[in-house]
């Protein structure tokens, strides 16, 4: 065990965990933030997607010891204009079914709009195909990303 200070959503959290502990479990069991989900543990499903210094990462496959002073943003701290637009579009289209993967979907979608405000279907495919939805809400995820992009235009 070792003590790590993680900056998550602008706040410092001290967590006492083994250095190999994936960031996901430091966020969940250490900092008590439960919006970021465990789906596979091997960076295949994207349910654990968070931002590390603004970049999307799979927190299930990143040891907490590698985080250092980098700033972590989770779904609870998503307050960018892209993030808000995506969340609004998600609710407007009733995208979620079971909802378990949607934190990760939304983090990936908001990151996409941050670098590409008007994504094409192909751009969406490339940015979002690391996020599995077993309910297969993909039709609405795609529509909601386009909707969010449109809402940010004006």
């Amino acid at each position, binding site marked *: *065990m070792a003590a790590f200070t993680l900056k998550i959503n602008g706040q410092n959290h001290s967590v006492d965990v083994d250095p*190999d502990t994936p960031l996901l479990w430091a966020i969940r069991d250490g900092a008590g933030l439960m919006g970021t*989900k465990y789906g596979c543990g*091997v960076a*295949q499903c994207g349910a654990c997607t968070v931002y590390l210094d603004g970049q999307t990462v799979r927190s299930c496959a990143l040891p907490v010891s590698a985080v250092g002073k980098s700033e972590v943003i989770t779904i609870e701290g998503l307050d960018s204009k892209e993030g808000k637009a995506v969340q609004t579009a998600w609710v407007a289209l009733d995208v979620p*079914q079971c909802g378990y993967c949607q934190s990760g979907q939304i983090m990936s979608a908001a990151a996409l709009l941050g670098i590409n405000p008007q994504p094409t279907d192909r751009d969406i*495919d490339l940015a979002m195909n690391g996020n599995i939805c*077993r309910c297969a809400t993909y039709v609405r995820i795609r529509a909601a990303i386009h909707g969010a992009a449109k809402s940010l235009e004006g």
Partner: protein
Amino acid sequence: MTIHEATLSRRSLLKAGAGLAIGVYIAGGGKAFAQAAPAASGVNIAPNTFLTIDADNTVTVLCKHIEFGQGPLTGMATLVAEELDADWSQMRADHAPSNPALFKNLAFGVQGTGGSSAIANSYEQMRKVGAAARAMLVSAAAEQWKVPALEITVNAGVIRHPSGKEGRFGAFAAAAMRQPAPADPKLKDPSQFKLIGKEGVVKRLDSAIKSNGTAEFTLDINEPDMLTVVIARSPKFGGTVASFDAAAARAVAGVVDVKQVQTGVAVYAKGFWPAKTARDRLKITWDDGKAETRGTPQLLSEFRSLSKTPGKTVRQEGDVEAAVARGGRLIEAEYVFPYLAHAAMEPLNGFIKWEGATASARFGCQFPTPDHAAIAKVLGIGIDKVQLQTILAGGSFGRRAQQTMHVAVELAEVAKAIGPGKAIKLVWTREDDMLGGYYRPFSIHRMRGVVRDGKIEAWSDTIVCQSIMKGSPFEAMSMKDGLDSTAYEGSHEIPYEVANFRCDLHQADVGVPVLWWRSVGHTHTGYAVEAFVDELLEAAGKDPVEGRLALMGRKPRHAGVLRAVAERADWKNAKLAPGRARGVAVVESFNTFVAQVVELSMEKEGPRVHKVWCAVDCGVAVNPDIIRAQIEGGIGFALGHILYAEQPLDAGRPLAANFNTYRSLRIDEMPEVDVTIVASTEKPSGVGEPGVPPLGPAVANAMARLGVGRPRQLPIVRGASA
């Protein structure tokens, strides 16, 4: 306000006795009547109410079905709100606690969700709850305003009298509690519906909490001093612990204890990571004496041999062999279906706290009544001493309802093994979940058909499949003449008129636990029947749509969805791009009729499905947008599995442990989906499962029209990895 905030306000409301609470008691004859419920007692939250109205006008419906995406929280609230004449914005919903007397599924007789039955069994019941509450509110207002109740109207949550008096529900909730509940409240004529079947007025109640990370799933339960438990289970089904060495596991920081339980060796730790790390360091010798040791190739060979001999007859009409002997073209096809894992996004889990004399558990529990009894039995206390609360689950597809109650049993066992007073969260890893069995059964269909003079003269279907129900507490109610209907449903009664028909079944015994999987038997029977009829029609020189319709004389709802989808997709006249083809299939499951047309092309790896048109007849369509969502999702779920998914066994040991080897559909593979809901006045039926079965055969039939043939063995892309 979130669902959870609603729970808190209701709790305080009932404690204060200030609101209206409505319970419905269903008498033996099934006739529903409403009654004012007594004040809540004990620690259960409003244990005997379906509905509460808060002083702030919030109406909260307790949903007796688990929400794992298919929409019952919204659906139940829609039914209540319709008859209550509530405004949709004032509606909330939450899960009901385990209480079979009040919250049983009227289709099952126990509390539970499955078989796409939530709306179907609740349609009248929940409307009566709303109608009774409305009548009581009106009576209360009439009393206070000193006007005849008949002169009062209710619209969008406002109670009005022509004199100008008006008020909202909250103001009359307490007085309404004291009004007699109507024994048989009058329900609206469907022509008066303002919410049921209407577009754009009802939004899901759980979208916001599922878009901001606040929705609480079982994995998110985080109580003070809680221990996380991860279990090492036998790599082979039926293996047991011979001996184990936990020294290395106990040395992991954060580990609190290690105990042997019936399913393996359980590690208790402060948090998931130490529990999992320690679990992986256990040294366990397994006794495989009673374990299943056959691999997929051996099972295939055994099933194949069996399928060449007649099984037990499920249904027979005319004489297939005589029809074969009369000549014509004999067509044979063998279809092979793999074991499939459900692989819901949230792996299996559960929370429990056992206090010795009492216990409380909460998790995404799909069958509360049997799970409740199982927990009480393991802990050796009465059911009345155990509270069980269902919460949101991250998908299920059937996995969270088990005929063996194995998750509930294991949850209680890990609590019992470490002793009372501990808050315990049992977590299955993704690998535990995928390797843990309870798969869609492996099966074979051997089809034979005779086409003579452009007509299908004979049809036989010999099925080899494991039973889901055999040996379970549900055996008596779900098996007939020793045969499990979930192995042949959809194969024994086909929508096509064929004079000489036979369906027979070999119920094979394999030591792999199997389970219902989104659309159950129809996952394979739908494929076998619809791919085969297409093949026979092709041999008969018939169009896939016209040929089917010609044989559906006695099946107007099948024909209705088939005509609707053909029209919507412009089946007759559509000009397809080079390299593309279309296929069609129609399957009834759970009393819902679904027809699909797919358009695809062949790429290097396999088919690429560009678009799916779907027509669905589910009786009265309560929530059209949720119906569309379930069809969209059902199509994606089906497509991912028929393309890629298989749980292969090597000498009894399942191999696909995670999404890298059990490939799931991703967004770039999701087709465009066009859903037509066929208008119907029939009783509502479910939509959670019925979108799944037609997709596979429609893909197969389109592939045949491209000249690559109908896949005989699933998945289509063999040996795919992510």
